[in-house]
């Protein structure tokens, strides 16, 4: 069963593989601190919260600096401020200034540099790396726990290799974060000033958390070998991993608060003046849906990048042993990616529904207006992700001796997937030529228009999820033979369950989607999702019962995948990256000409919404740069692996 390399290889090569150390805590952290200080110097005075002003005035007064020359007024105002400041240490003055109305002179000009594109690309780069770096420790920790519980050293080894890939990326995350901050401060000082009048306190917390994250990450990574004693030290190691994850997730939640505040501001009055409760601003209308969506998507994304890493190594492996290792790693990573992918459409649906309910204008801009076309690209890319995932599983049947038993089903799964996929991306608003318009007598095709609406899409995506799961199920079964006598009955029950679930999903979609009030259209998606989740959980339970004591029908021979399948892994990573970039653009662009929606106008020359083609070019450029950097990182991490391939 596979090859067993021992961990000492990794540890020996640690000094070479972990080149990240030269980038990271030594450079990135001080860099960030330096930037934060710079940032505080640059923001305009009105941005300082009242608290700071009180503190300044009070120190001036107390040192007797206020002289009669300055008049009684000043002194009165000052002592008033002091009084209210001292009135209750906990009940301090916190109200912020209103959002400034900006003019052209508030936007610094740097000859030949487009502020929007600079900030855009810096933010996007930072986000890609951050998503990867935040996600990897989550499943690394889970793998480590699994490895400890099952005693299967492959998990531990793979977990270690995952984190090693992410360590170089970590330094780049910090660097791109610094670049983003720098470009924001340079180009949008007034906006940053305003945001810090609301979020000042969270920014400090952010810095602190970042520090904790860096320290725990380095202990976690460099302590892996030393602390791997299988006892108390290992537990401590797991605890450090937990801390690492907690600080990382908290970091993301804070950043999400800033971003969602810009879309659905809360905790401020109509003029944008901060009302003092920072949690109200954090917990704005879109914060929770965004947190969920990003959290789940990050895991899928992290899995996909690690999968691409495994594919890279698989394709460049020279020995059968290392092919086996990377095959297994790619499989594990793709399972993580696909497993996390399944709930994302639902999280995205929640986020969209909340955007609609927050503002009709934003909602329609998002789905109905020009950006509607990007959603078609999104649908196509998501479909491509599902297809690639299924393809990988189908190819995986070749690993099993008994695989041929199930390959006959592949084409039926494929037919269902294609049909659902076609429904999934059929737009409501179709591109028509003039003669088609007149033949149809309108903008819509009388038969196809129904496919363009959400109920049809929800139905299609649920069916796609179920059939992707069935691919997985058949793949799993191909390596096993059950010993229990009632296995075929149980299988029949499973088939019945799937059938009932699919009928139910279709019924819900068609009936509530097209024959009832609009209110139910939205609501019907929830029982659909519940049906999907229930049937998958039930099937997992039944599978577990059937195969609990199963004998392996030859089991899986790792490393026996066609090279093509590895490109499916790469495709998954690239599609994810591009998708995140495109939809991230949409998410941000639906604010239209607002820095902070409905409160602070963007009055810079670049406040207009760029054309989709332009946006797609910027995002595609970013994707290429990111992928190039990622391949560079893969290459760096493989430097220390020379001797391993010779095993």
């Amino acid at each position, binding site marked *: 069963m596979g090859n067993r390399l021992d961990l000492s290889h990794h540890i020996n090569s640690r000094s070479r593989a972990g080149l990240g150390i030269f980038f990271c805590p030594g450079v990135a952290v001080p860099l960030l601190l330096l930037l934060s200080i710079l940032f505080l110097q640059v923001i305009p005075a009105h941005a300082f919260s009242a608290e700071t002003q009180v503190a300044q005035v009070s120190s001036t007064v107390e040192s007797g600096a206020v002289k009669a020359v300055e008049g009684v007024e000043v002194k009165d105002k000052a002592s008033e401020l002091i009084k209210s400041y001292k009135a209750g240490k906990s009940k301090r003055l916190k109200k912020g200034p209103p959002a400034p109305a900006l003019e052209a002179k508030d936007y610094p000009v740097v000859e030949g540099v487009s502020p929007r594109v600079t900030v855009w690309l810096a933010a996007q780069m930072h986000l890609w790396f951050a998503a990867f770096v935040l996600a990897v420790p989550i499943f690394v920790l889970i793998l480590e726990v699994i490895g400890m519980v099952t005693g299967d050293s492959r998990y531990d080894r793979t977990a270690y290799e995952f984190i090693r890939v992410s360590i170089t990326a970590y330094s780049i995350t910090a660097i791109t974060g610094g670049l983003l901050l720098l470009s924001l401060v340079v180009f949008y000082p007034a906006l940053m000033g305003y945001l810090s009048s609301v979020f000042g306190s969270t920014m400090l917390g952010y810095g602190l958390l970042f520090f904790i994250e860096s320290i725990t990450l380095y202990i976690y990574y460099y302590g892996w070998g030393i602390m791997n004693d299988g006892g108390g030290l290992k537990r401590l190691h797991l605890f450090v991993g937990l801390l690492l994850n907690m600080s990382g997730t908290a970091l993301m939640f804070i950043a999400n608060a800033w971003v969602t505040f810009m879309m659905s501001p809360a905790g401020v009055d109509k003029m944008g003046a901060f009302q003092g409760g920072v949690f109200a601003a954090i917990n704005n209308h879109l914060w929770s849906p965004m947190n969920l969506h990003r959290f789940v998507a990050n895991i899928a994304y992290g899995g996909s990048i690690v999968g691409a890493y495994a594919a890279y190594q698989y394709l460049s492996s020279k020995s059968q042993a290392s092919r086996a290792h990377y095959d297994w790693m790619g499989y594990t990573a793709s399972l993580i990616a696909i497993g996390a992918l399944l709930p994302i459409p639902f999280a995205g649906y929640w986020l969209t529904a909340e955007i609609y309910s927050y503002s009709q*204008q934003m909602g329609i801009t998002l789905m109905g207006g020009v950006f509607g076309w990007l959603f078609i690209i999104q649908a196509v890319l998501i479909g491509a992700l599902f297809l690639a995932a299924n393809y990988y599983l189908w190819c995986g049947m070749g690993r099993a001796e008994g695989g041929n038993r199930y390959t006959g089903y592949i084409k039926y799964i494929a037919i269902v997937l294609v049909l659902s996929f076609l429904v999934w991306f059929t737009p409501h608003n179709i591109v028509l030529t003039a003669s088609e318009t007149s033949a149809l007598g309108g903008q819509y095709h009388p038969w196809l228009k129904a496919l363009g609406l959400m109920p049809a899409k929800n139905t299609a995506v649920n069916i796609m999820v179920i059939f992707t799961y069935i691919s997985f199920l058949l793949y799993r079964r191909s390596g096993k033979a059950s010993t229990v006598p009632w296995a075929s009955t149980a299988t029949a029950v499973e088939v019945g369950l799937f059938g009932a679930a699919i009928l139910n999903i279709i019924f819900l979609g068609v009936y509530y989607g097209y024959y009832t009030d*609009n209110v139910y259209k939205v609501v019907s998606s929830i029982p659909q999702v519940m049906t999907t989740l229930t049937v998958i959980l039930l099937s997992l339970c039944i599978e577990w019962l059937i195969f609990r004591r199963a004998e392996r029908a030859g089991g899986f021979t790792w490393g026996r995948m066609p090279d*093509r399948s590895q490109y499916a892994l790469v495709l998954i990573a690239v599609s994810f990256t591009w998708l995140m970039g495109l939809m991230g653009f949409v998410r941000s662009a639906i604010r239209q000409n607002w820095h902070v929606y409905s409160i602070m106008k963007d009055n810079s020359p670049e406040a207009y919404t760029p054309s989709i083609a332009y946006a797609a070019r910027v995002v595609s450029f970013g994707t290429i740069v990111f992928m190039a950097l990622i391949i560079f990182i893969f290459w760096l991490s493989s430097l220390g692996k020379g001797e391993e391939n010779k095993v």
Partner: protein
Amino acid sequence: MHKLLKLFLLILGIYVLLKLPGLLFGLPVPSSLILLYLFFAAIVTILVMTTSDASANELFSPIIALLEEPARVRQRNTIFVILPLFAALITYLAVRPDSEGVVGFRSVHPAPPAVIEAYGQTYDLGTLENPLRSLESSEPERFRSYVKEGGDIYFQNCFFCHGAKLDGRGHYAHALTPRPLTFQGSDTISQLQESYVFWRVVKGGPGLPKQAGPWASSMPAWEGILNEEEVWKVILFIYDYTGNKPRQWSH
């Protein structure tokens, strides 16, 4: 049957199937969609056929043989001539000048502005509601009479374009691009809030944002012709007649 042939026939079959609605019922599936559908059907078929090395080899072997076998030089050269010619033909058909207009990415339901100015006041489209809507439950009688008045307004002003059945097929409709929209079906005005419809009626084509091509739309701006109450009444009518309910979120 050989795999490659199967693939070819399958794609051809799907193509014919997608063309049928246009040929038989005069309801063509838009060519932009046919292209997408075919593309993905082909991709998935190829994926299914290449899940194992054995079947992938079978699929590609004729192509490889054609390219590599020295004996098949004739065939090879013929195909190398035909293929580019075929590509040229397709390109020519796509770019040759004809009377079709340019296909644009027009959005039928563009995002509304946050506020509009009309009848000497400012309406906030985020909160605006049809003031007559509440009568539906409180004073059904009066509500019915408003709907009826709305119907009169409709047939005096709108039906030339939007049709006697509100299906977007009025007398003038066939001459207009874009077409007047239908109000029938559960996927039209029931997807919109009444404030949105109010904006569309009051500001018409000229009030559309740039992305929706205000220059193309022939929908008149009714603010100079109908007063505010009449607009609300005709809106009541178009929902009532088609059995649609306006989109609502909060309740």
